[in-house]
């Protein structure tokens, strides 16, 4: 990636958004895979889905690790997507900055909560 900030900034060319574009696709694929894994686990649960069988799905260490990766993927994915929305519709720089900061704080706070829930299981 070429430098796109500071005194060495390259002001010509393209691909400034390529990294985020690619990250959004990769995180999406990971979340889609996770959805399938969760769906299979729920469908293959015998009997009605109560607390024990639901919590047991997240008990395995590999499932915890996968879920953790999906949480981070979700936060990154949502950051790229929501930032796109602000950049398309909100033109005043000050308001846009406020919304960007809000988006980051919102996502990081939710991420921290979800990770806490996951790893204390």
């Amino acid at each position, binding site marked *: 990636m070429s430098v796109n900030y500071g005194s060495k900034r390259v002001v010509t060319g393209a691909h400034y958004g390529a990294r985020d574009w690619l990250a959004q*696709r990769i995180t*999406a694929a990971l979340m889609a895979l996770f959805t399938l894994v969760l769906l299979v686990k729920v469908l293959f649960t015998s009997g009605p889905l*109560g607390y024990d069988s639901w*919590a047991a799905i997240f008990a395995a260490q590999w499932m915890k690790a996968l879920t953790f990766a999906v949480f981070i993927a979700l936060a990154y994915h*949502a950051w790229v997507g929501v930032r796109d929305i602000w950049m398309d519709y909100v033109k005043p720089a000050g308001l846009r900055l406020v919304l960007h900061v809000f*988006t980051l704080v919102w996502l990081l706070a939710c991420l921290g909560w*979800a990770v806490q829930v996951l790893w204390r299981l």
Partner: protein
Amino acid sequence: MPELTRKRPEFRNINAFKDLTTYRLPAAGWVSILHRVSGLLMFLLLPLIVWLFDTSVSSEISFERFTSAFAGGGWLPGWLLKLVVLALIWAYLHHFIAGLRHLWMDVSHDAVSKQFGKTSAVVTLVLSIGLTVVLGAKLFGLY
């Protein structure tokens, strides 16, 4: 009149209040804007999603609180929470299916055609709304 000075049609941004009521989007346009709407909705309701995850998985006592919230035992009436969760179900289904359509178009040049764009958009809308109705009926206890 020479080619350069001929008056050309001018296209400006549409006005949200004057034009949206008469603006007719093709199916792919609906999928596109609903992809945004569903994504933003899930982003704004993210604390609720984490709360649902927290209470459902943390302990049997919290699981009790999770199920009773849907019966109206929380700070929201049960039907209202179900309605919000139904909106989340739709948002997830639409975002998921439209996202797969996106990925497919990213990796296949054959998928980038006017015809595929139209048919896959219609399939996306039918599937997401159909599955939402099926899961919503389950959520509201119709079967």
